[in-house]
């Protein structure tokens, strides 16, 4: 199939691979990244978002190191009593699984998009958005539970007061990303269904939306590890 690829993106058989490819991509008189501009810009946006989330997590690390009061044990804080059993961190584990599932359906949606299966792409994107909405709903439940328990950005019943501010800031900003992603995916899904990308002749927008969604999942991997498990 590669011999049919459009030459306008700079991919030619003369372009070397590896480090020589890096040099030739940057020094040749052509577009540096042979990808659609929207994709390159989404990657650069995600790079900037990486810096924002790293700043949040680094700030959290800093206050957790510097506090002289014991840090609340997340394993206990986020435990739930289900059917009489006390299960630590169970809600967070389910939220993680929901987000990973949504990432998988999104990857399939991108795949079906490039195969021009319009119905499958639309359905998988809407399923992805539904999983995202489920995630946000579970997060709202989690916030409600913690606020009822007495967690505030300035205090909490279990230990270091910085716990609340870190929790609300980091998970809140991530939840905002998920919510925005649900809207984004719904808009793109409705355009897929109406055949917008068939008329445009390219499904790259689906892949770009997918990049955003996978990034949201990626950030959760780090939040899960550093905030909930540490």
């Amino acid at each position, binding site marked *: 199939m590669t011999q049919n690829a459009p030459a306008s993106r700079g991919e030619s058989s003369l372009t070397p691979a590896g480090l020589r490819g890096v040099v030739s991509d940057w020094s040749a008189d052509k577009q540096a990244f042979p990808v659609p501009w929207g994709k390159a810009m989404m990657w650069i946006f995600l790079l900037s978002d990486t810096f924002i989330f790293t700043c949040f997590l680094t700030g959290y690390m800093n206050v957790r190191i510097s506090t002289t009061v014991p840090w609340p044990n997340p394993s206990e804080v986020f435990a739930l009593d289900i059917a009489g059993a006390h299960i630590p961190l169970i809600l967070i584990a389910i939220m993680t699984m929901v987000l990973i599932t949504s990432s998988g359906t999104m990857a399939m949606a991108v795949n079906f998009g490039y195969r021009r299966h319009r119905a499958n792409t639309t359905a998988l994107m809407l399923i992805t958005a539904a999983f995202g909405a489920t995630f946000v709903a579970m997060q709202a439940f989690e916030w409600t539970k913690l606020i009822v328990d007495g967690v505030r950005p300035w205090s909490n019943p279990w230990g270091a007061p910085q716990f609340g501010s870190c929790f609300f800031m980091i998970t809140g900003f991530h939840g905002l990303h998920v919510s925005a992603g649900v809207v984004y995916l719904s808009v793109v899904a409705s355009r897929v269904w109406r055949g917008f990308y068939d008329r445009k002749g390219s499904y790259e927008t689906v892949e770009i939306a997918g990049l955003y969604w996978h990034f949201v999942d*990626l950030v959760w991997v780090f939040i899960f590890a550093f905030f909930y498990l540490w």
Partner: protein
Amino acid sequence: MDQIAVPEPAVAQPHAVTQPQAVTHSHAEGQQHPIKVYLIIWALLFVFSTFSYLVDYFHLHGVLRWSLIILFMLLKAGCIVAIFMHMAWERLALKFAILVPPLFLLILIGLMAIEGDYTFLTRLAAFLR
């Protein structure tokens, strides 16, 4: 394009009549990989997530806990970026442009860890006085 794509007969396309030009484009575009690859990575992500949850469930502590958490975190992050986000198939120039800048964040993290320790010691000294 000289290649005429064959429309999929099995998929219902209620709006197909309105876009006759849709079938004239070549299918050779973007990132196309076997669905099997995605399913394997999907399964792996579930396995890694379960393992990292079990680290907490079995109350592992100390270096073992931290190293396992970071190991599973990096494995998951690698799977997502490389396969789901297609970074493994991009050209090296894009890989460098996106993946190298975050490495500089390690400097920030290192500096803030030192700073946090310093603040902690300062507080101890102030409170113990």
